[in-house]
Structures are given as structure tokens and as C-alpha cells.
């Protein structure tokens, strides 16, 4: 029993249910007249789902804490990619309009 106490089932099942509920929210939200907020809702839900999977399924909580640094590194560099691309997009008039 002691080993079972150290390996609880609950967090995994709860995370799975929450992920499915978020999927449902994403689908329902898609059909609501939210205008420009649609993108924020869709990507916000995707980011929340990813955070849940990273923390619960991929066990970012707990040792070794160095994992956080490794996990954050990719997203840190992604920030450069997105911000520099956004600057280019905002300052260039090259895109034809359709």
C-alpha cells in the first residue's frame, strides 16, 4: 500500500478530464461570435492544455528542478523568433492585400 500512496492515480485522471473539458470549451468557443478574440481563446486553451500536460504528464513538478530550465529554454528562444518576426511584420508593407 505504501508504494501505491507514492504513486497516486488521481492527478493523472483529473488532468485527463480537464484536458477533455478544455477541448470541449475550444469547440464551443469556436462557434461563438467573439470576433478577434477567437484567436486568443483558441491559443489560450492550447497553452493551458500544454501547461497541464507539461506539469502533470511530463512531471515538471518535482525533482530535478533543472528540468524547468531545459523545458523553458525552447520557449525562451521561441520568444525571439516571434518577437523579431512581429517587428518585421509591423514595419514592412510588402504583403499584398486580399
Amino acid at each position, binding site marked *: 500500500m505504501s*508504494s*501505491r500512496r507514492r*504513486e497516486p*492515480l488521481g492527478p*493523472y*485522471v483529473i*488532468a*485527463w478530464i480537464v*484536458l*477533455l473539458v478544455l*477541448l470541449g470549451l*475550444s*469547440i464551443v*468557443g*469556436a*462557434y*461563438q*461570435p*467573439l470576433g478577434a478574440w*477567437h*484567436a486568443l*481563446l*483558441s*491559443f489560450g*486553451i*492550447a497553452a493551458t*492544455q*500544454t501547461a497541464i*500536460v*507539461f506539469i*502533470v*504528464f*511530463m512531471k515538471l513538478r518535482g*525533482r*530535478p528542478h*533543472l*528540468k524547468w530550465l*531545459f*523545458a523553458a*529554454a*525552447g*520557449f525562451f*528562444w*521561441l520568444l525571439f*523568433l*516571434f518577437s523579431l*518576426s512581429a517587428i518585421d*511584420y509591423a514595419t514592412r508593407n510588402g*504583403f499584398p492585400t*486580399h
Partner: protein
Amino acid sequence: MPPVEPGVQYADLEQQSETAQLGMWVFIATEVLFFGALIATYVLYRASYPAQFRIAGHDSLILLGSINQAILVTSSLTMVLAIRAARLADRRALVRLLLATAALGFAFIGVKGYEYARDAASHSVPVIDFVFKHGYRAPAELFWTFYFIATGIHAVHLSIGIVLVLILAARAARGAFTPLYHAPLEVVGLYWSFVDCVWFFLFACIYPLGRAGI
């Protein structure tokens, strides 16, 4: 037989496992950049041609995309439960959960294949068979190009995951893993769940578009 001694460079099996997992996190960081570049391109084009992306996105099959997300989320659960079974020394549950994970992976690929067939039937395959229908202009083809490249690369990643999980299942059936030694399960589990996360973002890019009116 599972190794009972760690490699010479490690203090114990736990440190060896943690090192292997950190290695997978480094690989995942490169994958974040790989898929991130793809999605950054998508964001720039969507911001440039919002109406065309809504029109094209409305023709994607949200029911199949949603079913596939539910399948993937469930497969991540079975994968993590398989690792739990290894920690509890429950070999039968471990093998069954790994096989269930692989089966869910196959189910995803099957649904995706059916979806591709439906997309092809509606002439939405850029370059090969693309018809400019109801309000489509050139950027609509960009949307479908992103759709096939992104979901195709994701499917390749998932297929690699299925092979890895099946190899683990065969090793698990032979008793290769113990509560002390199951690092390969942890490492493949990280990969599998990450591929699941990629789908969350691809779903957000593709399926909700244009549902509330174009």
C-alpha cells in the same frame, strides 16, 4: 534482464534516469523551435489574410480534428499510467497500457488518413488537386499548405512514437523494466506527451477558424 548497476559515470540508477530525461528535454526544446517556426509563419500569414484563412479554415473537418485530440489526450493518459505501472512492478498492466497507447496512436493515424481522404475529395490539396471554391483566393491555398505540412510532420512524429512504444512493449513483456530501472519509459513518455502538446496548437491553428461566420 534489466541493468541493476548504473553506467560508470552515474552515482545511481536514479541519476542515470534523470540525465536521460534531461536529454529528452533538450530534444524537446529543439522541437519547440521546429514547430514554433512553422506556427510563427502561420501567425504572420493569418494576420495578413484573416478573411481568407477564415474561409479556408471553415472547410477543415472540426469533428475529426476533435476526435483526434480526444484520442491523443487519452493516449497520453495511458502512457503515463504505463510508467506508473512500471514503478508499481505491475508488468501485465505495463504491457497492456503500452499496447493501448500504441493502439490509440494507430487510431489517430487512421482518423487522420480518413480526414486526408475527405480533404482530397473536396479538392483541397495544394499543387496536386486544388480548386478555388466559394470565395477562395490565393491565400486560401497557403492555409491548406500549412495544414498538410504541419499535420503531416506531426503524423510522422506520432508514427515514430508508435514504433518506440511498441519496442518498449516488447521489452516490457520480457521483463526489461523494474521499479528501479524504467528510464526508457520515462524518456519515450516525455516524447509522446510532447507530440500531444503539438496537436493542441495545430488544432488551434486549423479547426476553430471561421466557425462563427466568415
